[in-house]
């Protein structure tokens, strides 16, 4: 099994009960869940539009470039944008996690 490098007395449950930790989980969930739903919906909009409404997607928008190609291209920018926002948020979460771990190691037996 995994050798956990910290000793057996690792205070997992104490951290889990900290309000800051609960706040970290809430904050992560509040972004990751809607962001995931959004990108899945955005992604499947393409095959669904192309498959069921091909005539609409064949309409030229810029010169010969049609809606289907533009939508497909926009998927790339959608993915990059979500990744960018995620990294920005994750930087804050890293900071929160660092604080939680620092507090835990400075006063290990406050319960």
């Amino acid at each position, binding site marked *: *099994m*995994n*050798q*956990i*490098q*910290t000793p057996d007395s*690792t205070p*997992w*449950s104490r*951290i*889990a009960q900290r309000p800051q*930790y609960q706040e*970290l*989980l809430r904050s*992560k969930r509040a972004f*990751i869940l809607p*962001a*995931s739903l959004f*990108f*899945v919906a955005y*992604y*499947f909009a*393409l*095959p*669904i539009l*192309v*498959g*069921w409404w*091909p005539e609409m*997607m*064949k309409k030229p928008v810029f*010169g*010969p*470039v*049609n809606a*289907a*190609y533009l939508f*497909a*291209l926009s*998927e*790339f920018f*959608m*993915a*990059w944008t*979500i*990744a*960018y926002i*995620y*990294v920005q948020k*994750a930087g804050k979460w*890293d900071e929160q*996690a660092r604080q*939680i*771990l620092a507090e835990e190691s400075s006063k290990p037996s406050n319960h």
Partner: protein
Amino acid sequence: MTPAIWMFLAFVVATLGITVWAAKRNTGASAYFAAGRSITGWQNGLAVAGDYMSAASFLGISGMIALYGFDGFMYSVGWLVAYLTVLLVVAEPLRNAGKYTMADLLAYRLSPRPVRAMASLSTITVSTFYMVAQMIGAGALVKLLLKDISWITTNTAIVGVGVMMVVYVVFGGMLATTWVQIIKAILLMTGTIFLSALVMKHFGFSFERFFDAVSHITYLDSKTKLEVTRNFLEPGMKFGDAATGGIGKWDLVSLGIALLFGTAGLPHILVRFYTVPDAKTARVSVVWAMVIIGCFYILTTFLGFGAATIIRPDHIVTDNMAAPQLAETLGGPLFFAFISAVAFATILAVVAGLTISASASFAHDFYSNVIHHGKETDPNSEVRVARITAFVVGGVSIFLAIQLQTVNVAFLVGLAFAVAASANLPVIVLSIFWKRFSTTGAVAGLSVGLLASIVLILVSPSLMGIDPPEVLGTKRHLIQMNALFPLTNPGILSIPIGFLAAILGSLMRPEPEAEAKFEELQVRAQTGLGAETASSH
């Protein structure tokens, strides 16, 4: 000797040099399996991109776009967006909770032996399908490229690739495999950018002229033998109602599901996150990979549409050769040699990456933890077993690739993605997010997901169908019966089946010990407390 051989030999010599250098630094298991967790974010990003941009993407996608226009581009879209699943859901918890393999995450709070045994089986299955596909591709590529040299045949090419990958993995471990991947990714990007630039130069660097040409391509239709003019930007040439009788749009959705959820279950991508020092670097490397992979796939439009307009679909020899052929037309024999050598290097690097993930899983999951109950008396024995496994995996895949060399390559890669999405992804996700997930659930999810995807492919139109007697050889279906499952990609059904099996198994046999450890896993996954750190030696 042709220039292609010289360029290929230069790549081989350079990568062997890296292997020698890496072999000197390989001391201990963490160095061998995880490159000492010393790889930086951008390096790992290139390596992840390298592992992902296989011959199937470079040769396959540009060929698909060249023949089917927009519908081929649909693959590219799915392959990039899939990285959001990796970034948002899998990469960081996996890095924080595991050591060398995907199974580490599952075994954290579940009963390790059954879970590791199944996860190892599924890892080796996915890697083998993927690897055999790459090696068959290598054989076919070499046969086409070097047809004037008599001793180079499909079989010698397959054996050559097999021997090289064993050398990288046995002597160089993860460090050598990672650097081979990085170099190959740089070469592939350089070649792709240069070839795209040549395509644009052909159109006087005017996007207007380029897209105008793409929307009016005149060629001889291969079925009707009549000259047709088609707009290659329009969807429907491969998946449309006219081409497929209405089922194609469902196939497109099913393919999308398999791509979106399969990537986060590919073992050779997942092991990459153990080579970096911490979860933050894992995250940075996914972002690097997304930038590189995204640019690469956007450029495949230029390669594919370029081949469609400049060579024309009726003059493309085979779909997998569109990109090298375009290079020859626009850049002459030397550039053709470069692109061919890059394609070959791509296969070699991807095959090495697959071998190390399969042998790490066998050595770490099966040998150390299932047979030896996780009591490692000698950590070096794990590395020794992995090296022996690499030999065996190399031998078996050389044998399989030679036996199966007529099987369609895209079908084998599709199988790998479908198995990864249906067997691996459900158990990874449930393990991270669902407290009541149990050992029975994991074993059920892995085995039912594996079985469902393989069975659905066996009864799909890829393998089942009734051919008229004049269809011969590789074009004939394996089973001469009407397909029982209408779609070529099983994802739309097999992924829900995988999830359902994992959930039902957990509900039927709850596991209080696993529930009790959920909190610990969650704290570790979300804060990185207790995660494996970079080795000091």
